[in-house]
């Protein structure tokens, strides 16, 4: 299974990290679908970016994964989470490190 964020936004025009987050937590599509009260096929459509979820479903997903909505869905291509977090850490550290002798 390819866990990288999708390269193209699919029909919905939205990029998302659902597949990555699901794999990270070891959850099956069916388990996630049951938690969201949707059909498991809908999770597949969401992961491929072929379906744009309602605000309610997007918020439910965010709540389920414990992340803000913008960390799961984006109109811009998403970077891998590790790269995004590591990148920020480096940016934050660099000015302080510069002061050190």
């Amino acid at each position, binding site marked *: 299974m390819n866990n990288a964020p999708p390269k193209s936004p699919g029909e919905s025009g939205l990029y998302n990290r659902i597949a990555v987050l699901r794999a990270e937590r070891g959850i*099956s*599509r069916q388990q996630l679908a049951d938690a969201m009260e*949707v*059909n498991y*096929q*809908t999770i597949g459509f969401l992961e491929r970016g072929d*379906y744009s*979820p309602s605000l*309610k479903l997007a918020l439910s997903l965010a709540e389920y994964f414990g992340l803000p909505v913008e960390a799961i869905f984006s109109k811009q291509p998403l970077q891998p989470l590790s790269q995004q977090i590591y990148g920020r850490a480096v940016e934050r550290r660099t000015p302080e490190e510069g002061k050190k002798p």
Partner: protein
Amino acid sequence: MISVDEKFFGISIAQRRTRRAFVIGVGCATVLCGWVFLHEAASHRDRGLGLLALLALQLILQLPRFLGGFRSGGMVRPFLVVKPAPEQVQSLFGSHKEFGQDAPLDERETGERDRIHFLAYRIALKFALMMFLILFVLSDTSFQWMIRLAPVFFFALTMILLGLPQTIILWTEPDMEPEG
């Protein structure tokens, strides 16, 4: 939106090509039964309907149920499922899955159902207008045999329309992925 167990007469309908084959089969069977019904009804006009005509009529009425959409048991899940109250589920009917009760459509499926019904409506409207136009144009020409066949065309149109939304769903819904 495909049936919960993804099987029809024991055959998996997860693949789109299998679903299309079933749709063609149901369509052909409906047309055949329609032809038998009209032929038999015409030949028994003075004595009521013949046995074969009644049998064909019964089959015609049953065939759209295979496509589903209205009741459980067809290839398409019911478009509208009224969720029983929890106490009813426990005391009378058992759980949904035990009795093969289809779950209500989710938000994507509801949207898709509405889109497909609108598409079916547009197709039906265009088809009906085209048929009226053809019959109007041909009414003054030598194609009188076609005018005599008008009831057959309208019968076929009605039969097609009865299952058109389900047919579109079965024809267009992509291959179903495994649950994992």
